[in-house]
């Protein structure tokens, strides 16, 4: 059986506000689910709930047959999160950064085993061989995302969560990073959930999409063609849109009809 991440009926309240309302989704190993939606629709909260950083009021989270474990180390061995705006000590080198991904596998003192070193080595050679000894504080935006990706890959967790991994990057790096994510997802057979602001980018790389509305409910989910419809997008984003297939890839792409 193919391993898959399965979320059913997930509801999260932060304070008095219901941020996610009865969200269900599945992602199979080797697939990318792109989550889109306007600001405040609970996209980041969805990832944080899967990573165990917020506890849901209702709903179940399974990977394969088993519910996702609550203890942080056990959770981290299954789920790795690439955060949206990480705070990091700029003095950390890329190697150290990648080794942080092994935290849940190390003993309390933190001495890496042969297996940990191999995991870090393979992550670095896959994602950032050119940045090996650089300090995080010296990296450009695109390089920094690769460093974080390196850490996420070094965990060897089968579920990869990415919170707007390209929102701070220019077009070229956006494509480069997303291509890398797609490659890693196939290569490592990861169940990947990627939150993206850019709906066209999302439609370009996703195997499936999930559109969240302002109230934290799922408006549409499934194949990109079924989610990226003018009716769905216009209603959620409150902007008149036209959707047409991309001339080369055939993927649905939205164009704003807003009159400036």
């Amino acid at each position, binding site marked *: 059986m193919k391993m898959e991440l399965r979320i059913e009926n997930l509801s999260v309240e932060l304070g008095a506000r219901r941020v996610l309302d009865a969200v269900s989704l599945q992602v199979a190993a080797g697939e990318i689910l792109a989550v889109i939606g306007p600001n405040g629709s609970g996209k980041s909260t969805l990832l944080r709930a899967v990573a165990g950083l917020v506890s849901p009021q209702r709903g179940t989270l399974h990977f394969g047959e088993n519910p996702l474990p609550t203890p942080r180390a056990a959770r981290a061995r299954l789920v790795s999160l690439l955060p949206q705006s990480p705070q990091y000590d700029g003095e950390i080198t890329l190697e150290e950064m990648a*080794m942080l*991904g092994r935290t849940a596998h*190390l003993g*309390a003192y*933190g001495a890496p085993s042969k297996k940990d070193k191999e995991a870090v080595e393979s992550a670095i050679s896959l994602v950032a061989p050119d940045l090996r000894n650089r300090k995080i504080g010296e990296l450009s935006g695109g390089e920094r995302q690769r460093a974080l990706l390196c850490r996420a890959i070094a965990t060897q967790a089968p579920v990869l969560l990415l919170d707007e991994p390209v929102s701070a990057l220019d077009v070229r790096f956006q494509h480069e990073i997303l291509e890398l994510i797609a490659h890693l997802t196939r290569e490592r057979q990861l169940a990947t959930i990627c939150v993206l602001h850019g709906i066209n980018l999302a439609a370009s790389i996703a195997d499936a999409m999930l559109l969240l509305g302002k109230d934290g409910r799922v408006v549409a989910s499934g194949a990109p063609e079924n989610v990226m419809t003018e009716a769905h997008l216009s209603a959620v984003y409150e902007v008149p849109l036209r959707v047409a297939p991309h001339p080369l890839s055939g993927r649905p792409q939205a164009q704003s009809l807003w009159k400036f």
Partner: protein
Amino acid sequence: MISRRAPALLWPLLFLGLGGATLLSLTWGAPVSFLDLWSQNPDLRDPARQIFLELRPARTVAALLVGASLSVSGAGLQSLFRNPLAEPYLLGISAGGALGATVAAALQLPGWNGFEAGAFLALGGALVASAVVFALGKGRGDALSFSQDRARLLLCGVALSAFLSALMSLVVALSGRLDLAQQIAFWLLGGLTRASWAQNVVLLFAFLAGSAILLGCARDLNALRAGEEDAASLGVEITALQRKILFAASLMSAASVAAAGLIGFVGLLAPHGVRLLGGRDARILFPGAAIGGAILLCVCDALARGLFPPIEVPVGILTALLGVPLFLFLARKG
């Protein structure tokens, strides 16, 4: 190669420094010469024996242990708060310990001079103070995220220190004992004049226990360099970690305060020195900070005794004179 090896110079420098500082502390500024130990004249030999075989070793060991404890405590707090200015004295944790020890003295609990009751109450005071400054510095908001406002934490520490000092004065005033007021005023300036082997045993225990806890958190403290939220997603139980660090830091500060009064800035100076030499990984930082702190206080104590004989300067004055410029430099660097 994935290495977290310390830079080449770090350990040789630290161990040389440790040896030199110990030697300096054992021999410098004594009224008799070290060579008098082998003198045929008992008038020279007996005081030399008393000084070099009893008084000096106890005091040197106390300086080493207090310096190491304060420094490791500071390094732990800096990692926990991710704030380079965190330090037991500046955060009011030392003041909590001092209040506890003062209460023990005012109540004339057994062992003020042998320091056991004082040490226990100091630990209680330091624990309460660290819990308070942690809660205040954390502020409201999300359970995981921690305020990155460095000044806020320090302000809370300063306010807490002022409050605890007021309580301390109140305890002294209510005790109605003039001798206590004098004794405590001098003790608060920080000094190792009361060093004894009994005290050193307590110091050693606190240092070993605290350091063991911190080294046992090395992995998690390294992960914490990526921030609380990130560390949690990497598998760190943040709340448990915070409790362990606060306890270890309080334990080491409390034992130091009970033994040697308020000595500030050692926990700032030594860990920053070690970081400057490249020891950022917790597995290098803590042992390095222990040795660095031991060197620093040992040298400062020797200077305190030897600079203006026969007057002995309270060693807390010297560490403050060294530490405040570093503090201001770090604060400006932002």
